[in-house]
C-alpha cells in the first residue's frame, strides 16, 4: 500500500517535472524567437528651451523598444561579420540560417508548449542548439557554448521524462 502510494507520488512529481521542463524550454524558445523582431526607436520629440522648440534638432533622450517584421535579424549583425570571416562557414548557408533561425525558434517553442509531437520537437530544438553551439565554438564564445550546454541538458531531461508527458495536443512522435 505504502509502495503504491509512493509510486503515485513519484508519478505526479515526474509529470510536474516534464511539464515544467516543457514550459521552460517552450517559453525560452518562443521569447528568443520574438526578440529577433525587436528593435528600438529613438524618441523624436523636440526639446524646448526658453519655452520654444530648440533650433538644433535636440530631441528628448531615450528610446522605445518595439517589435516589427522589418527589425528581424536571425543572427545578430555583430556576429554575422565574424561568421562571414570564418573559413569553415559556408557562404550560402549563413543567410539561409539567418532567415530560418527566428521562425524555427518560434515554431518549436510553440510546439513544445502545446505538446505537439513533443519528442520530435525537443529533438529538433536540441539540433538547433547544437548548430548554435558550433557557431559559437568557431568564434570562440566559450561562455555561450557553456550556456547552450545547460540548455542541452534540459532538453535531454525533458526527453527522458517523455513517459510522464501529459497535457499534449499530439502525443505521437
Amino acid at each position: 500500500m505504502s509502495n503504491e502510494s509512493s509510486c503515485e507520488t513519484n508519478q505526479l512529481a515526474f509529470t510536474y517535472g516534464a511539464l515544467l521542463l516543457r514550459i521552460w524550454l517552450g517559453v525560452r524558445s518562443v521569447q528568443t524567437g520574438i526578440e529577433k523582431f525587436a528593435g528600438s526607436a529613438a524618441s523624436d520629440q523636440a526639446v524646448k528651451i526658453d519655452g520654444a522648440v530648440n533650433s538644433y534638432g535636440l530631441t528628448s533622450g531615450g528610446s522605445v523598444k518595439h517589435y516589427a517584421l522589418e527589425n528581424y535579424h536571425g543572427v545578430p549583425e555583430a556576429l554575422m561579420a565574424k561568421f562571414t570571416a570564418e573559413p569553415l562557414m559556408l557562404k550560402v548557408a549563413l543567410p539561409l540560417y539567418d532567415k530560418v533561425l527566428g521562425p524555427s525558434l518560434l515554431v518549436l517553442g510553440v510546439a513544445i508548449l502545446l505538446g505537439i509531437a513533443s519528442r520530435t520537437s525537443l529533438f529538433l530544438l536540441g539540433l538547433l542548439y547544437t548548430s548554435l553551439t558550433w557557431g559559437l565554438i568557431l568564434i570562440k564564445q566559450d561562455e555561450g557554448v557553456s550556456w547552450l550546454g545547460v540548455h542541452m541538458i534540459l532538453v535531454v531531461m525533458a526527453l527522458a521524462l517523455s513517459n510522464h508527458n501529459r497535457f499534449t495536443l499530439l502525443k505521437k512522435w
Partner: protein
Amino acid sequence: MTPSLTPLNRRDFLSKTAAGIGAGLVLGAPRTAHAASDAADKIHVALVGAGKQGRVLFEAMSNIPGLHFQAICDIWDYNRQGGIAKVRAFQGHTPKGYSDIDEMLATEKGLDAVIISTPDFWHSPHTVKCLEAGLNVYCEKMMSDTIDGARAMVHAMEKSGKLCQIGHQRRSNPRYRYVLDQLINGSKICGQIVNVNGQWNRAVNSSQDIGFNPKLTIKQDILTKYGFRDMQQFMNWRTYRDLSGGPISDLGAHQIDIFNWFLGVPPKSVFASGGHDFFKNREHFDNVMAIFDYDTPQGGVRAFYQVLTTTSAGGGYYESFMGTQGNIRISEQTAYTSIYREDSAPSWDSLVSRGLLKKQPAPPKPEPAPGAIASYESAAAEAFELPGDLSKPPHQPHLENFFAAVRGQATLTCDARHAFESEAPIYWVNPSALSRQPIEFTAQHLTV
C-alpha cells in the same frame, strides 16, 4: 595676435540648414512617398567604397529623402555585391556596379555627388578625381594619409568650385553644436577653459586584425594595382604606415578636431609618445598620447589626448573641456557625456529653469574614511546633463548638411578647407612620437 580657425557663419548655417531639413521633413516621410516624387528633384549619388564604413554611411543616407543611388564602386566583389543588394532592397532597382573608379566616372552620366569611404590613402586621389569630374564629394576623414594629399583636396575643391565635405560628423551633430554655441560660448558655463582632455580607449579584443574567408580573396593583380601587398593588408590597411595614419588619425582625428573647433585656434605645438605595447608587429603605434599647447583669447590651454587600442579601461571615448567654473564632457555616446559645475561657480539654476541644462540627482556624500587626514580636496561638483539628444544615426546630420548644400540650401559644416585647418596638427603627432621630440608649429606645418 592669436591665429584663429576660419569660422563658419553659424546663423547662415542654421537658417539654411533648418530650411533644408524642414523641406526634408515635409517631403520625407515614408519611402514609398518620396519614391514617387519627381526624378528631376533627386540627387544622383555614387558610393565609392562599400565596406564597413560605406555601409554605415548608406544606412544613415537611407533615412534622407530625395536620394537616388546610381552606382557602387568597390574593388572587392564581396563588398560590391553586398552593397548592390542593400541598395536594390532599399530603392527597388539595381545600381550599376564598378570595380574601377575611372571606369565609373567615364561611364556614369548625370551623377551629382559621390560618397567616398575607401582606405585613407585613396581618399585624396579619389576625391580629386571626382571634383575634377565636376561632382560634389563627401569624403570620410582622415582627409588623407599625408598632409600633401589633404592639401591637394583643398586645392581641387577650390579650383573646381564643387562641394567637398569631410566626414567629421560631430561638426553637424546637434549635441556638439549646442554645447559650443549655447553652453561654452553663449552661457560660458565652463568659465575660462584651462585644460582639455580626450580619449578613445578600445579593448584589445576590438582591435584585433580582421580576418577573411580565403574563398573571397581578391586576385593578386587587382590587389597590387590598388596598392595592397596582399589580402591581409587589404583587410587591415589601418595598421600600415603607407596606407593610413594609424589609431591617432583613425580614432583620434574625430576628437582632436573637436579640440580645435571648440577652442577656435590651432595649437602652437605638439609633444607625443607612442609604443608597440601589445601589437608588437604592427607598423603603427598601438597606444599614443599627445599634448597640444594652445594660445586662446582667454589664455593658455593644454590639451591631452590618448588613443589606446589595448584596453577599454577608463571609460570609452569623449572630449572633456575643463574650465574654472565647470566641465563639459561630451561624446557621441550619451552615456559618456556629463557636465559638472565647480562648487565655487555661480548657480546654474536659471539655466536649468530655462531648459538649457538638466540637473542630475546629487550623489550620496561619501563617509570620511576612519583616520583620513584632512586635505584640500574640492567639494563634490554638481552634475548636469544636456537637455536633449540626437534621435538619428550619428552620421545622418552631417550627410543631411551635405545634401542640403548640394541643393543650395545650406553651408557645409566641414568643407575641405576647414577640415584641413583642424586636421593639420594631427599629421604631426606620429612624427613627434617617432622622434620623441616636441614640434613647434609654423605656418609651414599648418597651412594649405
